[in-house]
């Protein structure tokens, strides 16, 4: 497989719901033999998706449609219940606040840890440390434990690491929205740069303007990938759906 490609093949993902999960050993023992009722929840249903190396792919869909779950499967955090996900090359992911940061470690230690998780040695990480600190703009806070960081600082450092390790694949889940205007612009500029360098980027966002920048957009609805195509087509189909359900709601109100 070529570096930078992502292949999602017939993927379904099931989670067990909290209310159905024994919370103690005692409960688990008491439940042995009892049939588990159908409180299982299919978050993704038979998703097929091929993302070509170097493309910029956007994902949209309502809250809870499974976008973040799909990204997590791509990042290897979860294993699909059915099907397979392959993502080749160095993958860096910004999935949520504090992505991959250990709260007790300082920013700097976390940068090394993140590097280690990507297979980058301490020495190489030291070489890019200045760039990372510079990009994040968090200054001396880099030597404070990250648990005292503000949300924006988390994201800044996370983004700085993610883009400075020359990834083949970059997964971004909304997080940049937490940064201030200046930082958001810088992120977008940097993503453009990575895209020009041939990095495959998958971006989840509710911002439809951002979707226009993508080569392709996928629309998830209740765990099903209902449409994949050019931003224009998919976004307008999505907005149409949102409009029509809004109208039905209004009709109910009256």
């Amino acid at each position, binding site marked *: 497989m070529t570096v930078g490609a992502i292949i999602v093949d017939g993927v379904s993902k099931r989670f067990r719901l909290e209310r159905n999960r024994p919370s103690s050993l005692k409960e688990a023992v008491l439940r042995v033999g009892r049939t588990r009722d159908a409180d299982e929840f299919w978050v993704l249903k038979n998703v097929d998706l091929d993302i070509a190396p170097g493309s910029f792919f956007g994902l949209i869909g309502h809250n809870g449609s499974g976008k973040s779950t799909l990204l997590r499967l791509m990042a290897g*955090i979860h*294993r699909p219940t059915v099907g397979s996900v392959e993502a080749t090359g160095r993958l860096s992911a910004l999935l949520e606040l504090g*992505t991959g940061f250990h709260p007790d470690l300082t920013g700097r230690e976390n940068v090394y840890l993140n590097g280690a998780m990507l297979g980058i040695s301490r020495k190489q990480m030291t070489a890019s440390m200045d760039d990372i600190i510079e990009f994040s703009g968090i200054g001396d806070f880099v030597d404070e434990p990250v648990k005292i960081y503000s949300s924006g600082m988390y994201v800044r450092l996370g983004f700085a690491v993610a883009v400075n390790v020359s990834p083949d694949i970059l997964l971004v889940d909304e997080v940049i929205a937490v940064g201030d205007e200046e930082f958001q612009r810088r992120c977008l500029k940097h993503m453009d740069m990575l895209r020009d360098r041939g990095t495959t980027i998958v971006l989840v966002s509710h911002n439809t303007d951002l979707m226009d920048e993508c080569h392709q957009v996928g629309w998830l609805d209740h765990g099903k990938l209902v449409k994949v195509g050019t931003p224009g087509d998919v976004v307008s189909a999505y907005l149409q759906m949102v409009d029509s359900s809004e109208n039905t709601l209004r009709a109910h109100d009256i």
Partner: protein
Amino acid sequence: MQFSLSPSVRKSITLIYHFAERESKSRYKRSLLGWFWSFLNPLVTVGVYWFIFGAVYRAEPPMTGNGNAESFGLYLFTGLIIWTLFTGLVEGSMEWLTSVSDLRKKIYFPTETALLGGAASNLVQTLLEVMVLVVIMGALSNIGWTLVFLPVAMVLALGFGLGLGFIVSVLNARYRDVKYLMGILLNVAFFAVPIVYTPELLESEEIPEAARVLVEWNPVALFIEISRDAAYFLQVPLWNRFLAALAWSVTTFVVGWVFFRKQSMSISEEP
């Protein structure tokens, strides 16, 4: 020819090193004397046990290999080193996995590296204790080539303890009761292993045969016997004991590893 590791193995090694370093640093974080405590701790333990069992209860330890020392403290120490390694691995595993589980929900990395790193750090700690033991034994000139079996006993205990650690850490991620349960079990198990007493003590009419078999053939006791033969009695361990110990160690490690690899992916889905 250039020797090169596959990227995933290199990544794992980097991570193991990271976790080992972190565990070692956090052990004596904010302490002035640092590693000095690693020496002091076993020394004081041995001193206290020696005082209570040797001086107060006047327990009669067996003669050492060179036949010129009877020290209950040292008899204890050779057993305690292995026991501490074993329990450190079992209890540590649960802690190491818990400490990375939040991280694992946000980024993929092979979770076993956290346990392997923690184990490496524990092994270094045990090596320091072994150094203390060897120095004392040297001073008593109770030293021989059989010492080579001491690292063997350590590796066997490592395999068994880590194998068990793989299993209990995953169970503990699901049900926190496991930690408390293991705490109690290990407390009981301490007395099922001849550390504070000699196996000969059990050769009395009142003690049922089954109890004696349990004490003599339980895996941790086997590792301890090997370490005692190596460093205290200076004799070659019995081959059937050695084989039993090897079987326990390898089987437990393999079973634990397979179980962990299968189950640890679902850690990211735990609430």
